[in-house]
């Protein structure tokens, strides 16, 4: 799981904060940015988030990798904003956007996936009356994480079979067997879970 996860282990106060606290803070920050309307407020927010990366003892590279995914899009929005609404508005929109993305990424970088799963399982408790069972949510999460490499392997097998038959890699000829094999795999997993008495 650690191979897949974005978590970066460090010994820092940010890492030690409970996952629930960090998630709550993120939601509050998200709501709070709606109130920021001045360009210097947005820059201040960005500086604060960058400071938190320092407190978490994460490198600039960590931050850059996280922001790279949205950089192009934010740049396009920035240009559009400058043309349509002026540079101050552009700084506010892009600054708030970047700060929130960076802050959300900070939570992911400093919180182990297991801890987040625990918050999800605990958080799904109140959903019990809607038919959600917290124990099953935990099972589902670990099952889902383990299913990713399995389905990736199935995809590799389908591709190999296609190449062996000399068939071109047409999307339909790839997707249909992949879906059918995934259905069969789910059947087997279901049988195995029932055999282990999961469906009490």
């Amino acid at each position, binding site marked *: 799981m650690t191979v*897949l*996860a*974005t*978590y970066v282990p460090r010994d820092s106060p940010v890492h030690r904060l409970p996952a629930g606290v960090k998630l709550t803070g*993120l939601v509050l920050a998200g709501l709070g940015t709606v109130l920021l309307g001045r360009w210097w407020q947005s820059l201040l927010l960005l500086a604060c988030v960058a400071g938190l990366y320092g407190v978490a003892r994460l490198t600039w590279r960590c931050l850059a990798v*996280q922001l790279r*995914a*949205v950089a192009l*899009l934010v*740049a396009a*929005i920035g240009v*559009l*904003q400058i043309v*349509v*609404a002026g540079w101050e*508005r552009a700084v*506010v*929109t892009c600054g708030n*956007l970047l700060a*929130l*993305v*960076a802050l*959300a*990424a900070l*939570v*992911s970088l400093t*919180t182990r*996936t297991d801890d*987040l*799963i625990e918050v*999800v399982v605990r958080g799904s408790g109140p959903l019990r009356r809607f038919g959600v069972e917290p124990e099953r949510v935990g*099972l*589902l*999460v670990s*099952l*889902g994480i383990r*299913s*990713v490499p*399995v*389905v*990736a392997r199935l*995809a590799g097998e389908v591709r190999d079979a296609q190449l062996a038959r000399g068939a071109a890699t047409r*999307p*339909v000829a790839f*997707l*249909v067997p*992949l*879906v*059918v094999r*995934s*259905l069969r*795999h*789910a*059947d087997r*997993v*279901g049988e195995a*879970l*029932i055999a282990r008495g*999961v*469906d009490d």
Partner: protein
Amino acid sequence: MHTSSNRTRDLALTATFAAFIAVLGLVPAFSPFGFPVPITLQSLGVMVVGAVLGPRRAAAAVLFFLLLVALGLPLLAGGRGGLGVFAGPSAGYLLGFPVAAAVIGALVYRRGAPYQLGHGLVATVIGGIIALYAIGVPVTAWRAGISLPAAMSGSALFLVGDLAKAVLAAVVAGAVHRADPRLLPSRAPVDTSAVPV
């Protein structure tokens, strides 16, 4: 209404098809004309899952896929993951994914067996394009601070690609339903997607 063993099978289907959507995201994304939102097979996966699993299970699988992304697994197309993606300007499309899958599934399962390509294509366009854009476009407009028409004309760039994906998804769903006829309910007034598998 559901026996517990059906619920366990649905649990396995949910986990497996969340992984299926994730795997489609591993196929490299491409950005036509250097446009900032990459086009991927992931939204194709959402359409296929909707038409194959029906509204309830498909929505669960897609929601669960998003949960795995939120938990920090880099499963989103292009190896992205973590909570950051839900703060970005295209977050509305992510949040629209489960709705799209549910709408497609509801329309396909409502009609029941046998899956008919024309109907399936209409269902896929309604759920995978109209419903998805109806959520994605306003969120982009809000997050990017641009007007609704501006966001709409931006999304028009993806329309051709998404239409092609809808056709592909409908063809794939038809072939899957032919291969596994137990999935769709027989054509009768049925109001649930749960089928004894």
